[in-house]
């Protein structure tokens, strides 16, 4: 190995390390800005090392970099704060198409030189092109939806799911053929792959509503990492493989986190065409109880900007008041708006909740009565119902035959998301069923209230 080559490879190793540190640092508020710098340093190093390799067509390269760099820089500087997510989508799409082009170019070189490639090289080319293509058009559609150049509504046509699946099967079939040594006319196959991948990208994103675009972009971002990784295999370049794999893997994790914060599953985001089908689906799940784990609840709570605690007799039984107050303080410290709604009959004596909350040093000013909080319930992101039952029973509003019909309740069911912390599906003092537990925006966090809250707190600390 020549010394230059050695140095280049060492630079790649260092660059890979810088990417690792960069991503890690981006994950925490304190170091994020520096993390971005570190990773950009890694990029610079990788590019410089590559250029040092020699034998490249520097004029074209210079031209390309200058043009691309300028466009990128201007776009990044000009974009309005609010339009940043769509700009990221755009950039991401460009990364995808670049990977597609790299794969294509590599095939083109072998084709024009007449030197046939091994399947070990053809497979990565196929993957780079396919995933790069999907990423490109998918990102473009996402960009269009976010910037409202396209309708942000999900666009559905009958049989769409089936059609997409078919297309995918076809392209994979073509890909297999493409890799087979016996099959000729590979260039045509490649072009077919390019075409189908571009179509697939559009079709995959079109049916998703604008509100879910951030998740989609994050997923596409992971894809573009995978595409880069595939491109790395095409040209046997380790830094591409490492960086691509890092982005691919961490992007998947980030996507999962974002889904959790939206209280959705990835499948649900990708395939439900939620925005349009939401209504009917909501009715369909009625009568179903949705349990949630403290781990998952964390992501939703973490993303909330307004949280309402609704304590009841169960909080007293669990003696969870201190834990509740602590969770409240943590949220407050993070800038979340936190209040405690005390229902007059919560607990087993008048003022039961007051005694406990005062013991735990909850500020009197944070306590609100049902009448004060109900009108603004719609703007509450998360309601934590802590061992309360009768006092949050929507039957009091909805079911004229209910023995508590007409009682003013805390209308937690009108909050965006409701967590109900209790041990089982048992009823409360009044002995009546609570339809709240079956509402679509309710999540049951089963277990002793103190344990559950402590769990939630633990999630916040590390």
């Amino acid at each position, binding site marked *: 190995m020549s010394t230059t080559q050695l140095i280049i490879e060492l630079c790649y190793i260092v660059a890979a390390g810088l990417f690792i540190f960069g*991503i890690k640092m981006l994950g925490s*508020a304190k170091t994020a800005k520096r993390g*971005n710098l570190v990773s950009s340093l890694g990029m610079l190093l990788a590019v410089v090392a590559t250029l040092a390799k020699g034998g490249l067509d520097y004029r074209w390269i210079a031209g390309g970099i200058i043009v*691309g760099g300028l466009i990128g820089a201007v776009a990044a500087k000009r974009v309005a704060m609010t339009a940043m997510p769509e700009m*990221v989508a755009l950039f991401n799409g460009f990364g995808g198409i670049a990977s597609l*082009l790299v794969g294509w170019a590599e095939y*083109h070189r072998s084709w024009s030189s007449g030197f046939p490639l091994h399947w070990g090289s053809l497979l990565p080319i196929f993957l780079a092109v396919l995933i790069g293509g999907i990423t490109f058009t998918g990102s473009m559609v996402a960009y269009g939806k976010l910037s409202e150049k396209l309708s942000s509504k999900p666009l559905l046509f009958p049989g769409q799911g089936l059609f997409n699946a078919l297309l995918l099967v076809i392209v994979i079939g073509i890909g297999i053929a493409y890799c087979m040594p016996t099959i000729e006319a590979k260039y045509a196959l490649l072009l077919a792959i390019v075409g189908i991948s571009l179509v697939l990208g559009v079709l995959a994103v079109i049916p998703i509503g604008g509100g879910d675009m*951030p998740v989609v972009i994050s997923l596409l971002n992971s894809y573009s990492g995978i595409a880069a990784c595939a491109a790395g295999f095409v040209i*046997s370049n380790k830094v591409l493989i490492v960086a691509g794999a890092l982005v691919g893997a961490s992007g998947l*994790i980030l996507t999962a986190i974002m889904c959790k914060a939206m209280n959705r599953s990835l499948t649900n985001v990708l395939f439900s065409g939620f925005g349009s089908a939401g209504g009917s689906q909501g009715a369909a799940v009625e009568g179903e109880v949705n349990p949630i784990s403290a781990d998952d609840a964390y992501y939703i709570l973490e993303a909330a900007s307004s949280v309402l605690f609704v304590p009841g007799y169960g909080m007293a039984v669990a003696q969870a008041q201190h834990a509740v107050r602590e969770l409240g303080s943590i949220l407050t410290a993070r800038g979340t708006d936190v209040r405690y709604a005390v229902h007059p009959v919560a607990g087993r004596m008048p003022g039961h909740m007051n005694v406990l909350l005062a013991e735990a040093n909850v500020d009197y000013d944070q306590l609100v009565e049902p009448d004060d909080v109900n009108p603004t319930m719609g703007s509450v992101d998360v309601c934590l119902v802590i061992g309360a039952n009768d006092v949050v029973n929507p039957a009091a509003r909805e079911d004229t035959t209910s023995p508590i019909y007409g009682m003013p309740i805390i209308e937690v069911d009108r909050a965006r998301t409701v967590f109900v912390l209790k041990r089982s599906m048992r009823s409360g003092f009044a002995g009546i069923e609570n339809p709240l537990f079956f509402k679509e925006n309710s999540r049951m966090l089963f277990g002793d209230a103190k344990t559950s809250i402590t769990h939630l707190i633990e999630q916040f600390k590390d």
Partner: protein
Amino acid sequence: MDTINLLFILILSVFIGFELISKVPSTLHTPLMSGSNAISGITIVGALLALHAGDAHDPWMIGLGVAAVIFASINVVGGYLVTDRMLGMFIQKRSDDK
């Protein structure tokens, strides 16, 4: 053997990728996405290598290569800058809070 090595490297990188981030505050979701999007622009290295001096005679190669370089450059440069701006806002907001 080389492919196996690369596979080894891939697997290890994937492991690292999965370990790297676990609990990201929601305010950082977008910047993190944007930052790692910039990293995925690493494909620029592939683009550069596509522009072999030896291929200068083939306009197709040049076309594909230059297009790849341009797109990748947009991704890299734009990605890093936009991330930096986002994080700038972020830090500003945090210091405003105080």
